Every structure is written in C-alpha cells, then in structure tokens.
C-alpha cells in the first residue's frame, strides 16, 4: 500500500504543466481564474491545442486517437488542467457520445463521427431529459417511427446544455411501446441542421444561458444514425452515465478552495482578514478536511478499471462539496454578493468592478451550482442506486 506518485507520474505531471505554460494564453487563463463566462471559441481553442499534442481524448482506444495512460496519469492530467486554469473540455462529444460510438457503433459510424470530435470541428449535445422525464428518464416520450430508411422523430428534449452551439445531438428516443419502458428506447444521432428542429433557450436562476429546450417536429433521421440495435438504447445510456459521472472532481474542488481562501484573505472583518476569524477559519478548515477525504476516496478508486458504484458516491459527495464551496465563497464577500451586472461576467468589461473584482461571479456561481445535485441523475437517484447496487436493499 502506498500513496506516492511514482517518478514517471511526476515527470508526466511536469510535462503537462510545461505544456499548459507554453500554450494557454494569459487572457484565457484569467477568464477561467476569475470565473467569467467562456465562449465557444475559448473551448475550441484549447481543445484543438490539446488535440495537437495528442491529449484531447486520452481515454479513447489508442488506434482511434487515445493514449495508453495509467489511471494515475488520467488523474494527474485532469487535475493539472484544472489547477492550471485551463478551459474545461466540453464532454458531450469526446467523453460522452464518443465512448458510445467506439463501443457500440459500427465501423462506418466510427469513421464518420470520431475524427470530427477529435479535432473539435463538430460539437455535440445530449438529448436525454424531457419535460415529463427527469429522474424517471426511462419514461421518455420522444418518438422515432421507422419510415423507409429513415426514422421520423417527434418530441421535446430539455436541459440540453449548449445546444445553441451544437452541430449534432445524441438522443434517446422511443422506438417501441412494448415491454418495460427501458426496453423500447433507441440511441439516435441527429444532425442539428435537420429540418424540424427548433431550439429555445432556458435562462437559469443565475441569469446565464447554458441550457435549452430542443423541439423535434417530423425530423427525418437516416437509419444509419442508429447506434447498435433498435430498442437497446438504455444499455448504451447506462454505460454513458457511468462515464459522465466518473469525471474527476478533485481538481475543480481544489480550485474552488484556492478562490475561497484568496477571497477570505482579502476580505476584512473587525479589521482582520476574514480567513483569520476563528468562525470562518473553522468553516474553511472543515471544507478542506472534506476535500482531503474526497481526494483520498477518489485516489482509492483509481485502480478500478470499470467505473462502478463508486461513481455514484463520488458524484454525491463531490457535488455536495462544489455547492458548499460556492456557498462559503458567497458568504465571504458579504454585501458584495448583491450586485448583479451581467456584463461584468465577461472578460473585457471595461467599467471598474462594483466592490472587489472577485465578487461579481460569487452569487451567480452559488445559484448555478444548485444544478450539480440535480443533473446527471439527482443525488436522490444516486442514493436509490447505491442502496440497491451496493447495499442490496
């Protein structure tokens, strides 16, 4: 038993750090560091840089563009990206639909879709949730009816993150009403330029536009866009959910801690730094202890080859910590959590900040982070899963 990273791991870490230092522009780093809004071009820029280095899709099979990394390298790579304030990788293509395609898709689909994902020339979004199907995903009603060599798709998807930027959407659709709800679902890839698709933005409580509703009216989708077998989509969706949940959160949590500590060191109370006030110091220490625990827990799962039940508890505990950090950070800025100047969240805003320059994103982030306990299977659903899968209840 040991918790040391080997010298090869450490050398790799230095390599990643050097790469980030050489390639991440200062203003992009600043946007991330200050929690400002990023545009599509920001993500694209960084993804292309990573791809040039061969690091954009490390978890893919080597023959398709992946790298044979040890679990510790994946862990380090993700953490260095976050600690270096790199834009996060948009997961919908490379981390979500791609594993489904290379695991369950046919050769033609692999050749057609994977290269465009790899070079970030095609953006994907996820069509899972529907207005009537939230935690009960299997109850989804968007229908795909076979008509010759096409499916005709009708229905509504919602909470579709960044659909406004996406070229393609991967959808769960109902192809059969027979049997259990899970048994009639298929996994379909749909071109967002298809006639009959309409996108409506959903503004969230933090004032941002991340998610959308996507309406399908008689959208014709070629049958060659079906992944695997008809009516087996639930199997692929479950596989994908595990991937979605198995993203390392430790790096992001550490970044939140850095920001919290930095803010609390600058904020004053009774003439001293807030970070030195015993009550607030205890709250920060409590967060740090929980974060160390989370890190140790995540490190223990690194050896596992397949993501399993631990994905569920890492999701619950990790999102709890994301929310806690955002709440403490909002508390740290005191009255300056109140001002809401939408433009101040964009780099290049030329007015001086209202109050300290770190204050503007704190309340929107706190509000926005409420989503983390809801999305990707709410934390209540994760507990249902764990009670059955791990505890056999």
């Amino acid at each position, binding site marked *: 038993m040991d918790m040391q990273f080997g010298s090869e791991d450490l050398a790799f870490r230095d390599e990643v750090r050097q790469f980030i230092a050489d390639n991440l522009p200062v203003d992009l780093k600043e946007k991330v560091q200050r929690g400002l809004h990023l545009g599509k071009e920001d993500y694209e820029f960084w993804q292309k840089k990573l791809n040039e280095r061969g690091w954009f899709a490390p978890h893919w099979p080597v023959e398709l563009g992946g790298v044979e990394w040890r679990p510790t390298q994946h862990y380090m790579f993700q953490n260095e990206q976050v600690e270096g304030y790199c834009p996060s990788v948009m997961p919908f293509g490379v981390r979500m639909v791609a594993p489904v395609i290379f695991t369950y898709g046919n050769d033609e689909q692999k050749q057609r879709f994977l290269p465009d994902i790899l070079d970030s020339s095609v953006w994907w979004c996820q069509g899972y949730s529907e207005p*009537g199907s*939230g935690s009960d995903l299997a109850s989804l009603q968007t229908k795909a009816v076979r008509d010759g060599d096409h499916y005709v798709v009708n229905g509504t998807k919602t909470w579709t993150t960044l659909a406004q930027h996406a070229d393609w959407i991967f959808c769960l659709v109902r192809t059969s009403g027979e049997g259990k709800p899970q048994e009639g679902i298929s996994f379909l890839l749909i071109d967002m330029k298809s006639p009959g698709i309409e996108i409506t933005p959903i503004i969230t409580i933090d004032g941002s536009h991340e998610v959308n509703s996507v309406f399908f009216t008689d959208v014709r989708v070629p049958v060659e866009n079906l992944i695997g077998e008809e009516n087996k989509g639930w199997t692929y969706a479950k596989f994908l959910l595990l991937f979605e949940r198995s993203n390392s959160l430790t790096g992001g949590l550490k970044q939140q801690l850095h920001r919290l500590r930095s803010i609390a060191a600058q904020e004053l109370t009774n003439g001293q730094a807030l970070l030195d006030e015993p009550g607030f110091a205890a709250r920060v220490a409590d967060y740090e202890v929980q974060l160390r625990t989370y890190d140790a827990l995540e490190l223990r799962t690194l050896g596992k080859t397949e993501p399993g039940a631990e994905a569920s508890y890492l999701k619950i505990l990790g999102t709890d910590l994301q929310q806690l950090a955002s709440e403490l950070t909002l508390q740290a800025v005191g009255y300056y959590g109140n001002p809401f100047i939408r433009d101040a969240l964009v780099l290049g805003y030329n007015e001086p900040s209202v109050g300290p320059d770190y204050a503007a994103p704190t309340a929107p982030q706190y509000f926005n982070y*409420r989503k983390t306990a*809801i999305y990707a299977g709410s934390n209540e659903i994760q507990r249902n899963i764990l009670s059955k899968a791990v505890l056999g209840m």
Partner: protein
Amino acid sequence: MDFSLSEEQQLLKDSVQRFVREEYELEARRKLVASDTGYSEENWAKMAELGWLALSLPEEYGGIGGSPVDTMVLMEEFGRGLVVEPYMSSIVIGGGFLMAAGSAAQKTELLPKLAAGELKLAFAYAERQSRFDLNDVECKAEANGDSYSLSGHKGVVFHAATADKIIVSARTSGGSRDTDGITLFLVDNNASGLSRRDYPTVDGLRASELEMDGVAGTPLGAVGGGAALMDQVVGQAIAAICAEAVGCMDVLQETTNEYLKTRVQFGVPLSKFQVLQHRMVDMFMECEQARSMCYMVNLKVDEEDQVEREKAISAAKVQIGNSGRYVGQQSVQLHGGMGMTDELHVGHYFKRLTMIDTMFGNKDHHLKRYADL
C-alpha cells in the same frame, strides 16, 4: 400570551394579499424588475393611498401609529409577493430613524411627506472594509460651523437611486470601529460632491455605490450618538425582514408541496416517495420555527432590556438564516431542473432568501453577536 391577529391586522393582511394577487403576477413583477427604477411609482402611490406608508409612522405626523406587529403583517405579505418597492429602505429604516432621532423640525417637515409617498429615503452604512459591523465606519464628516461636510465611500446602498434623501453614517470623531463618534446625516441625493453608481442586485432590487467628496449633510440625532441609534433602527429592520423571509419560505413550502403532488415520475406522484415526504416535513418544520421566531422578535423589538432585546434580534436572524437556507435550497432541489429556471418563481424566492441572510449581518455574524452578548 396571544398569537392571533387583531381584526385590523387581519384586514391589513387581506388588503396586502389582494394587492399582491393583482399586481404581482410573475410577468408583472418581471417588468417591474426590468424597468428604469426597478419598481413602480404607481404601486408606491397606491401604498400611500392604502395607508401602508403611514402604518408605522406616528399619528401626530400624519401616520397611523402602528406597532412592529402591524409592520410584520405587511412585510410577510410583501415577502409572499416578492414585492420590490422600497418599503424597507424608506419606511422601516428611513421612517425609523426619523421617528427615533429626528428633531421636531425634521419630523414635521419629513414624516408627513414620507407617509404621503412624496418622500423616499435610503440608508448608507456599509463600507468596503466594514463587513457586517455597523460601527466600522471610515467615512468622515467634518464640521464647518453649523454644517457638516462628508467624504468617503458607501457600498450597496439599497434604493439610493430613487431616494430623495440618503441617511449616511459617518465618523465625527474616534477611530475605525469605535462605538463613539459616529453620527448619522441626512444628505440630499442631488447634493454636490455626491456621485452614485447604480446597479441591479441578484434578487431583483436596486442598489448603488456612493462616492462622497465634501457633501453637505445635516445631522440626524445626536452628534456622536449614531451607534446606539443604528442598533435600534436596524433591530427594527431585522424584525421586519424576518417577516418578509417567512412569507418567502411559506410560498416555497406550499409551492414545492404542490409540485410534488402533481409531478409524476416512475408512475406515481413524487409526493409518494418517503425521502421527499420527510424532506417536506423538515421544510415545514423550518417554516414553523421561522414563523415562531418572527413573532417573537417583532413582539420584543422594542423591549426595554437591551441585552434581552439584542439577543432576541440576533437569535431571530440566525434562525431565519438557517431556515431560509434550508427551505430555499431544498425547494430548488425538489423542483429538479424546473427549480433552476428563471421562468418559475421558485428560484426568485430562493435568491431573495439567500440575500436576506446577508442583510444586516448573516447568520454567522449574528450567532457570534448572540454569543458575545
């Protein structure tokens, strides 16, 4: 020992409920929030007409002479409606300072106008370094004969843009954080040397940063006696804002309960899941606890015994902060994705409750204050 409303209070409650029902539909409020002033002058005039602006003001100056419980009844319904008019700034705080410390001339001049809706006030106290300490004041006021000249910065002054006069705390003597030496001043909003930066807040209100460079101010209350005065009036403001929070929480609890009963997942309403049932019970208990402390603080806010009064105020603010946090967060969580949308009311109540915790010191601040009392 009696926790029922008087007949007049019940009538007042009904009347505010009617106003909220008629003027505060989601869309109507959205327009108010997006408007130039951030609220409606028509609503303000209506509030004057209905006697609400006069409610807490003394009868001899055109008021009705109501009690803190009367204000509580009003504020709770304002909370239920997420009302954005500057009642707290103008009437509870502005009126509170005038009543507590205004000279006879100031009262005679200003209180009738306040009651009639012809005068609006704001209160500037927070500074960049002050956090929640009302006595951490670095703004300076220099005496020039009978008049004073104020300089310094004030932050997050609610409803300053639309106020006619701003009540400003400034130091006439003593060092930072001294209790002695703080004086309150009445400052004209169009006074020379005063510059303002106005902005919206995350919960749909308006606030401003003030820069003062030799602004003329008239003392309100005894020179150097601002600390005790602020304790008193901010205490009343806390009691009132507790009621607003109770209104917000009750709406969230009711709305969420309703949502769980109608939202079907896995073939049954969400309300049939035991985990959500118990969560709702906890939300309900938080609401009942918050309401109990709201009653308690409004009945004790003018209590003679200073320690008991301040303990009651801080205890209430702590409980309201804890309850509001739980009810707000859980309402969003139980609404799932819908709770995250700007479209539903849920998120707006949640944001307001979040900011109410910050107002006049958050729960950590008041817990420490309670322990130190």
